[in-house]
């Protein structure tokens, strides 16, 4: 494994760990190994980005770590629980309690307004009152810059606004870890920047993020980059927290690292 940069992991608290994680399935009589014996720790407050070529298993890893998909072998430890072994009920609890998800295709509910799309998952939390959820939703709408279109339906707003709404929805319950799968994959340049700025802001505010992307601009926002190839993590790069003014040097550093990964 190539390691660039230095990081003092002892200073950070481990939030989620994968141990010997594998995912395979049979296809046309052959066993395909999508993920092979992955060991990985994610830390609180990190903005971790997984990169890799198409078909390298990035999204599969993301969903195996988040419990959206089950690994064939290995463990995913979160709060002393092995996510791989959790039943559907426990996984559901994790989804509306500890984890948040942002998808490439936004996946907003078409018949709910932006406000409702954000608030509805919040309502599932029994420990929070409806008033608190509504206040948090308003706060997020302002933060995401979509307050003016909060009563609009998803089909009535732009892709960027939809994705910002999706991010707000993902963090309505203040998750411990936000999983983002190519969140800028379906966006134009301007919207991409807006969404990445939001994610960066969230991270700066302490939000742990695990993002999968093959977009260089998105990768620059990370403070930890992992490279996945043929289902294995083959490289890791740690970076200082993102600053706009450092973007050029950061870009060169990441590019060099990716070149070394034969990206």
């Amino acid at each position, binding site marked *: 494994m190539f390691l660039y940069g230095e990081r003092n992991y002892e200073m950070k608290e481990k939030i989620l760990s994968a141990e010997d994680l594998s995912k395979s399935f049979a296809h046309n009589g052959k066993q395909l190994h999508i993920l092979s014996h992955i060991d990985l720790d994610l830390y609180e407050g990190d903005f971790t980005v997984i990169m890799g070529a198409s*078909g390298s298993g*990035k*999204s*599969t890893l993301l*969903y195996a770590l988040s419990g*959206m*998909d089950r690994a064939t072998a290995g463990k995913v430890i979160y709060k002393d629980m092995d996510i791989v072994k959790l039943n*559907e*009920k426990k996984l*559901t*609890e994790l*989804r*509306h*309690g500890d984890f948040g*998800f942002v*998808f*490439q*295709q936004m*996946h*907003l*509910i*078409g*018949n*709910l307004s932006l406000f*409702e799309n954000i*608030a*509805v*998952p919040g*309502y*599932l939390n029994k420990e929070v*009152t*409806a008033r608190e*959820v509504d206040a948090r939703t308003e706060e997020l709408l302002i933060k995401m810059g979509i307050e003016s279109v909060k009563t609009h*339906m998803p*089909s*009535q707003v732009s892709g960027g606004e939809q994705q910002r709404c999706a991010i707000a*929805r993902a963090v309505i*319950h203040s998750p411990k870890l936000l999983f983002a*799968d*190519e969140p800028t*994959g379906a966006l134009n340049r301007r919207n991409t920047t807006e969404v990445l700025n939001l994610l960066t802001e969230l991270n700066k505010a302490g939000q742990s993020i695990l993002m999968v992307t093959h977009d260089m601009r998105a990768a620059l926002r990370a403070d930890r980059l992992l490279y996945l190839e043929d289902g294995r993590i083959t490289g890791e790069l740690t970076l200082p927290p993102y600053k706009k003014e450092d973007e050029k040097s950061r870009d060169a550093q990441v590019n060099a690292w990716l070149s070394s990964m034969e990206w």
Partner: protein
Amino acid sequence: MEIWTLVKANIRNKKGSFFSIVLLMTIISLSVTVILSLKRNTKESMDALWEKAAPGELTVLIKKESLTEDLLKRVEDSGLTEKVEDIPVISADASVINDITNGNTLFMRKRDNWFMPYNDRLTGYADENITINRGEIYIPIGIKTDHSCNIGDKMRVYTIYNHYYDFTIAGFLAEPVVGSETIGWKQAYVSDADFEQMYAEARTEELAHDSEVTADVHILQIYQSENADMTSVEFRRALNKETGIVDFAFGTLTMSESQKYTLLLTDIITAALLVFMLMLTAVVLIVMGHSISTGIQIGYGELGILKAQGFSKEKIRLVFICQYLFAELFGSLAGIVLSVPVMQLMKNIFFDITGILSSDSLALGAASLLIGFILVLSVLFIWMMTYKITKISPVRAISGGQETVYFDSLFQTGIHKKGIHAGLALRQLTSNGKRYIGILFIIAILVFFMMTVMVLGNLINSKTSLEAMGFMPTELSVEFRTELSDKQLEDIETKIEEYTPISHKYYIQNLYLSLNGEQTMCCIFRNPEEVPAISKGRAPLYDNEIVITDVLAEEYALHIGDEVTVTHKDEKKTYMITGFNQSMNDIGRVFFMSLEGSANIGIENIYHGGYSLLDDSEVDRIAAELNDSYGELIVAKVAFYETGGGDMYEEIINMAKALIYILSVVFAFVVVHMVCTKTFIQERRDIGIYKACGFTAGMLRLQFAVRFLLIAVVGVVIGMVFSIFLSGTAISQMLRLAGVSTIEVSYTPTTFILPTVVICICFFIFAYFASRKIKRVETKELVLE
């Protein structure tokens, strides 16, 4: 070939929709085939029985004393008649089988060439040379139906002055003229020796009492001359004008009337069921329409690809037509096959009503024609519904499907933490309302029929409703064996009131009189203010007044204030019409007058009393007590209006209720299943999102079920509104055949609650069941990789 390949593939991939349409079409085809076959077979069998028995066009019931030699000769010599068959019978005013008293007049006769007994298994005719032994009696099927009796059961027959004779039922008869359950008069056959004994004893009693009461009656079968060429009603009118025979008779029945009465109930049942089936056909079309439109929406991309590959829009539409038509054809054939055993069952029910044994062959021609019409209609409907296919653009379809669905609804309600699942269910409903309009219509139709059949049930069980239809519902009925004085009537009332107060009483006599030359039933009231169901004008309070039914007014073009001539034997008087009412007697062909009015034409006595009791708990004891104390004068019997003679009607209505409820549940299941399947496909992505947000499969299934529950509630409300406005009209249209033009529809809480509960629970449970696939939706389906 390419079309066939696509049709096969579509059927394979949409097995649920295919089998749903097959099931619905099976029900429709089965019902249509059975209804049309029963209708045809009953009519054909009735015609065959008339041909076999060959009765005259006119049956006249006349007391011996009225049938003078001169009168008979006038009839026989008339140029209008071919021949007259004179059959002496003994009139019995009551009979008891299995402890059930029947107050309808029974005419006892000797074995003659009319004697046509069925075999013991009631599968065909018995040997015609069968002998009737002493103590044996053969009765028509109509009595068997009323009393649920069998061969070997004992039957007690009362003639005049409380004379009774005990018989053993030896068999059942085919009797075309008055054999049907729907006709009150009945004929029974006894041995010659029994007949002679009864006749002699009745004659002795008649001579011993100086009264009008007689058991000596003659049935005249009058055959129309070939030269006359008249309808049977015209024949009766003309013959009466020439000979006065109808004026002297106490009852007549023309061939057309007899056939009409015989088929009355079966005609009503088949007409109502046919309407129900046609409405269910509309339901099938709606379900198909929904399936097609959502199918196009879901398969937009694939349809675009087909177009891109060179399939014309017509070819694609043809694929849809073939796919659904194939299911309909399959269902139609299955229905026809299944109608074979169902016909056996239904044939027996119709046999009980009409008394006519019919074949169980299928009316394939008529059924095929109607089913063919339904199929043609559905082809046109599918062609119309697939119009959207012509608008599919291959480019847009390939590049990601159709346009974004734009949700905006006037009925948008907020979503709150409290009741979040109901809120989301409501949003899913209102944001795509169009998808559910068809279902609402289907529910409304089902609820309408469910409520209508319940209203019909209420009608025959509600005293007020029966009174409004012209019935005189009582708990205790008394037939007078002789003329009773006011003092005797008072004694009877006093005896009854020793047990409970009388809330209402009727003293009446029904008999046939000539009204402007037409034989018409007359109902004579001791207290004319009791004449029921007057809808216009007033009761016939004076001795020159009558009230006629709406049916008669329409038939004879009569108005209030018009004068009519009523004839009884040699007596003739002009009466003025003072009002209109309705009655189910004689399919509404009845007029009413006071006893004072009838005295003008020589009718001075009443022979029937009916008592409505405040407390009917001891009615059996009262009847027994009256029979013990006044047995020589009267026959008292329990006559609960709910069951008295109406058992079979109640049973039929209960059967119709069960049939409509069962079919509604089946249709609800199929509709929910089909709609849920399509909705599930359309909303699969949303389900995944909800799951990713932390919703459990159980919560989502609950939302799904709640959504259909909400649809059911709205549909039920629409159905109720339909019912409130249309059930009365629908029932009165149906009962018009039986002579009732206006009904007082009564709704009980059950009328509303039962259909609501059945439909809502069915939709909720079926939707919850149909949404079980939600468990299989995984959040990883949202991932693009």
